[in-house]
């Protein structure tokens, strides 16, 4: 489906359907992720927390969302 590809992003290495430009806060909400628990990179650039509201995720973006897991 070319339309789906045209509107999808790469999220943590896998394709993810976006459905048009989406504010980062809306994407995090959709993913049920709390901003205090994650950090976000778009196209290898870190998005500072203060910019979350103003940041728009666009089709084709490479998005990385990380959190903390158990480790030594």
């Amino acid at each position: 489906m070319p339309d789906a590809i045209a509107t999808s992003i790469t999220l943590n290495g896998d394709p993810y359907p976006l459905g048009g430009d989406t504010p980062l806060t809306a994407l995090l909400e959709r993913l049920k992720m709390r901003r205090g628990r994650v950090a976000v990179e778009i196209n290898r650039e870190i998005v500072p927390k203060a910019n979350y509201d103003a940041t728009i995720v666009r089709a084709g973006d490479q998005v990385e969302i990380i959190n903390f897991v158990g480790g030594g």
Partner: protein
Amino acid sequence: MSTTRKAEKMQDTSFELGGRKFKSRLIVGTGKYRDFAETKAAVEESGAEIVTVAVRRVNITDRGKENLLDFIDPKRYQILPNTAGCFTAEEAIRTCRLAREVGVGDLVKLEVIGDQQTLFPDVAATLEAARVLVKEGFKVMPYVTDDPVTCLRLQEIGCVAVMPLAAPIGSGLGIRNPFNLAIIIEQAKVPVIVDAGVGTASDAAEAMELGCDGVLMNTAIAGAKDPIAMARAMKLAVEAGRLAYRAGRIERKLYATASSPLTGLIG
């Protein structure tokens, strides 16, 4: 010695890392536990104030998953993100930048692995990453080989601590080179934390008796049959080792010296 004087002697000075003071000299990891509840219980029992975590992609498909920070409260513990799994300076730097953006401070445990089988550090890449991270304002605690010269270099770069290994990560072999550690401790102007290789309580006590400022461990607690009990054992061992170091041990002698008076013997 008066009781007040005794109490003073027993009272240890806190140790400082990146401008913050800590009472506990045991730093614990959060990996390899059965679940977050066990992680939390073990961390609490250990008395640790600094807790290491790893940085990974969030699980997109399993969104309801609990988050580690819901169990290890960042308001109560100093979270120390690590760069475990990074094999290049670039990966480690990227990981630290992301970790800082989560919002738990700028203290990081830098590890750049050089070999999959031994998990020994890539010293050149560790130095390279440390230089960049220090410039970016990170408080860097590098995991490093027990090499005195590398520890000096890391200190010169501006790392807030050096963390020489006791033995390979997760090996439980204990302190393989106490002499190198003794040199590192003598030369260091920043805290020295033995990181990796501790197997049981006596290993932790030995590190502290050598004069280390702290011990960092994960597997020794998480991999024990009873992690909660081992967490307590490690807490006590670190305290005992530190106290013994401060008390000043007797010199080793080849021959006996009687503990009881040699005069007034019967007969």
